């Protein structure tokens, strides 16, 4: 939280790390009430180039409104991950496929989250979007801290939204009502949907809370915290509806709605799943009349962590609908 500029100044002053309203800018009245320049290290790192080469070469890079280059932390399910610096206006596709080398393990692309924990998740149909301040904002995401997390088809977008909202609950300073209380209710609603206890009216509540966070929060943490929810509701609404109406998690991630199974006809008895399971839910049977051992998953023990599915090279481990949802 204390990376937010006014909260940072409060902390330096020895006060509780909470943001202040910014209608009066820090350059007028900042640290100890004095004019203050506070910039990100990345912003400052751009300055020497501009001093050395002039502003024109810098402004020649990028789009009409987003100038220069930006460093992204390209991670997740890409073949090559790491810190990459690209001109503003590079497309998501170029980042994920040309630079990242595409999706690891030959799986299909599902979404990319840009901008850090409070960024939005963008779907395949937006892969040709230009990565710049304005385009990302229009699509319920942001450039933010330059996070870029690539997800494959084994990510549940409801669970992803819950994960980030839960993270942000811990980050919120708790000073203002929308962020402190709104995030808590969002987290509760999302957790319920993941457990199969959601109602369609929850989606309206989520949208209402998201609107309030965006419009009425005091600082950028609360104002952006709704992005993971808004973007997944906008681009992956069918997944929310599957969880709510069909008690089904299409990605096979939500524990209460999924079970892991081994499709015997695809299984080569290699035993990788057996080694991968961290809690011994995989059972091995050796019989005379099969080539190798056969494997099955003990549903009672299995926590649906997905380690076996990740390990299998033959797509023989599949997530299925859990028939009766846990109480």
């Amino acid at each position, binding site marked *: 939280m204390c990376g937010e500029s006014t909260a940072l100044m409060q902390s330096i002053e020895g006060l509780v790390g909470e943001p202040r309203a910014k209608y009066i800018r820090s350059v007028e009245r900042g640290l100890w009430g004095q004019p203050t320049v506070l910039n990100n290290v990345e912003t400052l790192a751009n300055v020497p180039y501009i001093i050395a080469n002039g502003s024109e070469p810098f402004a020649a890079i990028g789009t009409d409104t987003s100038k220069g280059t930006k460093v992204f932390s390209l991670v997740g399910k890409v073949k090559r991950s790491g810190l990459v610096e690209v001109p503003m206006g590079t497309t998501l596709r170029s980042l994920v496929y040309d630079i990242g080398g595409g999706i690891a393990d030959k799986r299909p692309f599902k979404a990319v989250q840009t901008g850090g924990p409070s960024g939005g998740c963008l779907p395949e149909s937006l892969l040709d979007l230009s990565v710049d301040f304005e385009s990302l904002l229009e699509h319920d995401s942001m450039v933010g801290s330059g996070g870029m997390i690539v997800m494959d088809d084994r990510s549940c977008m409801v669970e992803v939204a819950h994960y980030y909202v839960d993270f942000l609950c811990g980050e919120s300073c708790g000073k203002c009502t*929308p962020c402190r209380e709104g995030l808590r209710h969002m987290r509760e609603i999302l957790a319920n949907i993941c457990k199969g206890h959601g109602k369609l009216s929850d989606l309206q509540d989520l949208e209402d809370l998201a609107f309030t966070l965006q419009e009425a929060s005091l600082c950028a943490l609360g104002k952006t915290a709704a992005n993971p929810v808004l973007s997944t509701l906008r681009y992956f609404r069918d997944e929310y509806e599957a969880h709510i109406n069909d008690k089904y998690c299409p990605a096979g991630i939500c524990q209460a709605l999924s079970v892991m199974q081994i499709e015997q006809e695809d299984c080569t008895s290699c035993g990788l799943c057996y080694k991968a399971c961290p809690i011994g839910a995989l059972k091995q049977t050796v019989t005379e009349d099969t080539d190798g051992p056969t494997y099955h998953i003990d549903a009672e023990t299995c926590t649906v962590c997905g380690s076996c599915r990740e390990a299998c090279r033959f797509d023989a481990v599949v997530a299925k609908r859990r028939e009766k949802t846990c109480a």
Partner: protein
Amino acid sequence: MRIIIDGVSCESAPGEFVKTVADRNNISIPSLCHHSALPGLAACRLCVVEVTPSGGKTQVVTSCVYPASDGLEVSTKSERILRLRKTILKLLISRAPKAEGRLKEYCEQYGVVDSFKPADFDESCILCGLCVKACDELGNSAIATVMRGIQKQVQTAFDEAPHECIGCASCAKVCPTGKIIWSQDDGSRTIWNKCFELVRCSCCGKPFATSEELTWLTNKSIDQNIDLSLCPTCRARKTAKAAISPVR
């Protein structure tokens, strides 16, 4: 300089808070964390309004800290604002169903009947921050918020009776929800688990302040002629008498 609030043109000083101007013109904007003596918290967010600076873009701001500028147009009751206020009230009443005072009235006024799932803690504090600010401004800082996010609470250091507290109960008096409990009998006052003996007025004999408060006043008081052995009523009487005596 003038600003326009809900179509009404209002006189304003540059930089004056929009809510202050609205209050002066009897245009009511609900607020829970604003106190004219303790401005600047902007925590409850209930006082949101839409503003359009002349030549600028319309945006949602909190009127309790937004500075007026010439020609500023303010809308306090747009559809967007009403939607936000309702959700904020719903969030607050879900957190603090036991809150007394204005919060309940606002909920009625804005037709907020249902709530989200109540918090699993027993609360009437809405974390407006006024109590902490009042104590800080007095220079005592006996209470502060601890933890962050939903765990945030107003507390004394280590939850113990605070050494710094002078028993003035300013925190309780600014609290909009009646969260801070204090009690007083004939000879003592208890607040934040600390018991104070009360000093009696040298004239009428009524207990009126803690000795810690009087020491604080002695240290702060600019006017050395104030007789701190008198209760406020007797002190006022004495001042009034002194004021009229030369006439006789």
